[in-house]
C-alpha cells in the first residue's frame, strides 16, 4: 500500500517537474538590453536607438523569435549623464542580457569601456569616435554598427580639398574632445584655418565667434560638433552674417533634424553621412516599417544603425546553441558581407562593421551623395 502510494507520488512529481521544465524551455527567452538617453539633452538622438532596436526585436518576435525563444527588450534611461550611463549599463547587466546596445556618445562609451571589459557581454554602439574600438579599450567586447569617424572624416576632407578647395578656411567647433578631434583631423590634412573659434555645450549665442570668423573672410567654414540641434543653431547664426560661405559640417548635420532647423541656411551644406535615407527601395521600406511601428520614431542613420545592430546581434545569437557571451562575440566577429539597411557589414579585428560614409550635400531639402561610399 505504502509502496504504491509512494510510487504514485514519485511519478506525479516527476511529471510536474518535467512539465515545468518543458514549460520553461518553451518560455526560454533572450534578453537584449538598451542603455540610451531617453531624457536629457541627448534624448532626441537617444530615443532613436531604442526605436531602431525595438523594431528589429518586434519583427524577429513576430516571426517566432530566435530558435523559438522570444526576445525580451529592456531599455534603461541614462538621462544623458555619464554616471547615468554606468548605472543603466549595470542595471541591464544584472538581468543577464545576451547583448547590450550602448549609447551613441563616444565619451559615454569610453566611460563604460572598462565596465564592459569586466562584464564580458558584447556591446553594440553607433558611436563614431575612433578610440571606441581600440583593442585595449574594452578587450574586444565592443562592436560598432557605424563607420568610425577617422574613415568618414577622411572622405570628407578628400572631397573638400579637391572639389571645394577653399583658399581661406575657418572653423568653429565644440569645446570637447569630439570637436577638437575634428579640428585636429582637418589641420593634419593641411587645412590652414584663418580663424579658429569654439563654443561651449549649452551656449546659445555664437554671434561673437561668428563675427570673428566673418572678419577673416573665409571661403569655407567647418562646423564640428555632435548635436544636430547645436549644428542647426550655429548654421542659422552663421548664415545671418555669411549667407554664401560654404559650410562643411560633421555628421551631426547628416540628419533631417538638422535641416529642419537650418532650413534655407542648410542648403549646400557639405557633410558626411553614415547612411543616406531614401536612396534604396529597402531603405524606403524600412523607413515605412519604422514609422508604422511608432509614429514618433525618427528615420535617421542612428535608428537605422541600431536596427542593423540588433538584427546582427540576434542573427549571431540564433547561430549558437547556447547563449554564451563569448560564443556570441565570436559569431559576430565572423560576420562578413551582411546586408543591412545602412550598408554591408564586415566586422574587422577591431569590431568595426562599416568602413566609410557617404559625402553628401544638402540639396532641396535632401542629402544628395556627391561621392560614392567607400
Amino acid at each position, binding site marked *: 500500500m505504502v509502496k504504491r502510494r509512494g510510487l504514485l507520488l514519485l511519478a506525479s512529481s516527476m511529471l510536474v517537474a518535467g512539465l515545468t521544465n518543458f514549460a520553461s524551455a518553451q518560455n526560454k527567452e533572450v534578453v537584449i538590453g538598451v542603455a540610451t538617453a531617453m531624457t536629457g539633452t541627448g534624448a532626441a538622438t537617444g530615443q532613436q536607438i531604442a526605436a531602431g532596436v525595438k523594431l528589429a526585436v518586434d519583427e524577429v518576435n513576430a516571426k517566432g523569435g530566435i530558435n523559438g525563444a522570444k526576445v525580451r527588450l529592456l531599455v534603461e534611461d541614462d538621462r544623458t549623464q555619464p554616471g547615468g550611463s554606468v548605472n543603466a549599463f549595470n542595471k541591464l547587466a544584472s538581468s543577464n542580457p545576451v547583448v547590450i546596445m550602448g549609447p551613441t556618445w563616444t565619451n559615454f562609451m569610453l566611460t563604460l569601456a572598462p565596465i564592459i571589459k569586466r562584464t564580458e557581454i558584447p556591446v553594440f554602439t553607433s558611436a563614431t569616435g575612433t578610440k571606441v574600438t581600440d583593442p585595449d579599450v574594452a578587450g574586444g567586447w565592443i562592436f560598432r554598427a557605424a563607420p568610425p569617424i577617422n574613415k568618414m572624416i577622411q572622405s570628407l576632407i578628400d572631397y573638400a580639398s579637391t572639389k571645394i578647395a577653399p583658399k581661406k578656411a575657418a572653423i568653429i567647433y565644440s569645446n570637447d574632445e569630439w570637436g577638437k578631434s575634428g579640428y585636429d583631423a582637418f589641420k593634419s590634412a593641411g587645412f590652414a584655418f584663418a580663424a579658429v573659434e569654439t563654443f561651449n555645450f549649452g551656449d546659445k549665442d555664437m554671434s*561673437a565667434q561668428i563675427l570673428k570668423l566673418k572678419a577673416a573672410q573665409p571661403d569655407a567654414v567647418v562646423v564640428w560638433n555632435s548635436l544636430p540641434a547645436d549644428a542647426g543653431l550655429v548654421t542659422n547664426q552663421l548664415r545671418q552674417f555669411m549667407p554664401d560661405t560654404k559650410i562643411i559640417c560633421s555628421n551631426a548635420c547628416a540628419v533631417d533634424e538638422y535641416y*529642419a532647423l537650418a532650413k534655407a541656411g542648410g542648403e549646400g551644406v557639405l557633410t558626411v553621412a553614415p547612411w543616406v535615407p531614401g536612396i534604396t527601395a529597402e531603405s524606403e521600406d524600412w523607413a515605412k516599417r519604422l514609422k508604422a511601428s511608432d509614429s514618433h520614431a525618427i528615420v535617421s542613420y542612428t535608428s537605422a544603425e541600431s536596427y542593423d545592430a540588433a538584427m546582427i546581434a540576434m542573427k549571431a545569437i540564433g547561430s549558437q546553441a547556447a547563449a554564451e557571451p563569448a560564443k556570441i562575440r565570436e559569431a559576430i566577429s565572423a560576420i562578413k558581407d551582411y546586408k543591412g539597411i545602412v550598408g554591408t557589414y564586415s566586422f574587422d579585428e577591431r569590431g568595426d562593421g562599416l568602413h566609410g560614409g557617404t559625402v553628401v550635400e544638402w540639396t532641396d531639402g535632401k542629402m544628395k551623395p556627391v561621392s560614392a561610399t567607400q
Partner: protein
Amino acid sequence: MDPIYLQLLVQGLAIGAIYGLVALGFVLIINTVNVVNFAQGEFLMLGGFVGLTFGALLGFPYWAVLVCTVIVFAILGTVFDKVIYQPLRGGDFATHLIGTLAAALIIRNVAQHIWGPEARSYYEPFHQKIFDVGGVLINPQHLLILAMTVLLVAGLYYFLFRTGLGRLMRATAQDRETARLLGVKVKHVGTLTFSMSLAMGGVAGVMVAPLFLVDLNVGFIAGLKAFIATIIGGWGSIPGALAGGLLVGLVEIFATHFFTAAFKDPVAFAVLMLFLIVRPSGIFSERVGDKA
C-alpha cells in the same frame, strides 16, 4: 569705433534683456511670496514651445501669439501657484531649492512628452532677416526684444506704482503680515504674482526662440544666469534684476570676443565673485526701508 563693437553691444543688450526678464519674474516671486523659484528658467523654455504651437503649428499672427502666450502663462501661473508653490511657502531655502528644482524637472519631462525631444525652429516674425545699416549688421529680433522689454518693464512699473492692485502687491512684498491684517487677500496677490512672473518668462521665451531655437535645454542655463543677474543686480531689487541681466549679457559677449568661448562662463562668474566681494548687496542694494 569699429562697427563690430556696436553689433556686440546691441546683441549683448538683447540677450541681457532676456536674462533680465527671467530675473524680473524671479524677483517678483521672491519679493511678494518669499519663494526662491529655481524653475524660473523652464518658463523661458516653455514659452518657446507655446509660441511655436500658436505660431507655427496653429498659424496665428505674431501679435496673437504673444497675447495667447500671456494668457496661457497667466493661467499656468495660477496652477503652479496652487500645486507647487503654496505647499512650499514657509519653508527654508533648502526646501525651495529642492522643491522648485523638482518642479523644473517635471516641467521639462512633461514638455518632452508633449513636443518630443528634438529642437524645433520658430523664426517669427522676421524670418531671420538681417539688415545691413552702413556696414553694421542689425538683427531686428534684437531690437524687438529691447523694445518689448522696455514696454514690459514700463508696464510693470505703471502697474506697481499707479494702480491700486499694484500698490497692494508692493505692500504685501514689504510686510505680508500687516497687509493681511489690513484685509489684503494675500493669497490672491501671490497667485497674481506667479501669473505675472510666468507671463514675463513666457513672452521672453517666444522672443528669444528665433535666436536660441525652441529647445528643451534652454531653461536650465537661462535660470542660472537669471539667478546670477539677481545677485549682481541686488537681491530683491526690480531695477537690479534688469541691470544684472543686461550686465551678464554684455559681459558674456565681450568676454567671448576678447578671449575665447571657453572663458565666457569663467569671466561671468569672476564678475559675480567680484560683486560678492566688493559690493555684496549688488548694484541696487535695497534701501533699508524697502522691505520689512
